[in-house]
């Protein structure tokens, strides 16, 4: 999912850097002066957990592997805009410190994993709240990562490095992640269920009150 340098044409990389800057600007504007102190540890733990979970390459017999991306989980647990910022921190550290994802294409990687994955996952989670109350977290995890992969397919397929073979990149990225997304949806569901049972008050959209209680 992390695009390295050289895979995208500069105009495409630049366009997604601008889009990402806009989304991060909206997130900062919405949250500035609004984040309750009680949610700061949650932000740190969720982001660190997603960084750690992305280290785990799940072996899939047949010669492929996948790692959890976590954008949908971040959106569900933290809310959409804080989720975006958490994923921005994770993906930027991965690129700057570990060379995981290129620097020139950082804007595109952030767009895919920190914006699209988070917002699509959160939107599915909220839209299915009453229609599919049981499976909505799984679907949110699946849809978020698949949407992000489709964007990777678009960005690479419209670039010269991939010989503009959009049909190949869309099929491999969108189709591949639609299958691998089952793992993403399953992990998202399990983590959400565990946290909902243990600490329902830390789920995004709710707020921990001054005394530690839940405010809707």
């Amino acid at each position, binding site marked *: 999912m992390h695009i390295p340098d*050289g895979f995208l044409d500069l105009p495409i990389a630049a366009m997604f850097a601008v889009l990402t800057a806009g989304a991060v600007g909206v997130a900062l504007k919405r949250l500035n002066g609004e984040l309750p102190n009680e949610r700061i540890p949650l932000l*740190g733990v969720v982001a660190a957990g997603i960084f*750690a979970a992305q280290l785990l390459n799940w072996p899939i017999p047949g010669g492929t592997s996948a790692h959890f991306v976590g954008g949908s989980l971040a959106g569900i647990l933290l809310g959409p805009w804080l989720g975006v910022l958490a994923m921005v921190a994770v993906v930027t550290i991965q690129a700057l410190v570990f060379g995981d994802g*290129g620097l020139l294409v950082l804007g595109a990687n952030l767009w895919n994993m920190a914006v699209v994955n988070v917002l699509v996952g959160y939107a599915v989670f909220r839209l299915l709240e009453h229609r599919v109350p049981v499976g909505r977290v799984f679907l949110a995890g699946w849809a978020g990562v698949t949407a992000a992969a489709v964007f990777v397919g678009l960005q690479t397929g419209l670039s010269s490095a991939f010989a503009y073979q959009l049909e190949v990149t869309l099929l491999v990225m969108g189709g591949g992640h639609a299958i691998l997304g089952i793992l993403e949806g399953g992990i998202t569901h399990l983590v959400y269920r565990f946290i909902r049972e243990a600490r329902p008050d830390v789920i995004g959209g709710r707020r921990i009150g001054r005394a*530690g209680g839940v405010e809707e």
Partner: protein
Amino acid sequence: MTASADSKVGADGRRWPKLGLATVLLLVTSSPAFAWAAERVGYTEPLEVAAERTGAETTGWYAGAFPDYTVPLGTIPGGGDILLSGLIGVGLTLVVTVSIGHLLREHK
């Protein structure tokens, strides 16, 4: 919510970040085993498959301080590279996100 319930949730509230961090450390310590297992099946992500089919190549001009989750000290046996990289990454992520949180915290 009653006062006693409030205090119970409050106590949990102080404890859960430690439990969360313990879970995160558990994930990091299991990363060498996952890396080994992924290596055994041949680690290939869909993006690598697409690149192979279309002939795309990376330019790779920047590798980072810990390229691909290795450490500059040389190979550490038993998956120690990814373990150490994971601990550094988790620590950095915590510092950065908690700092962002403090910058955005509500004005009282």
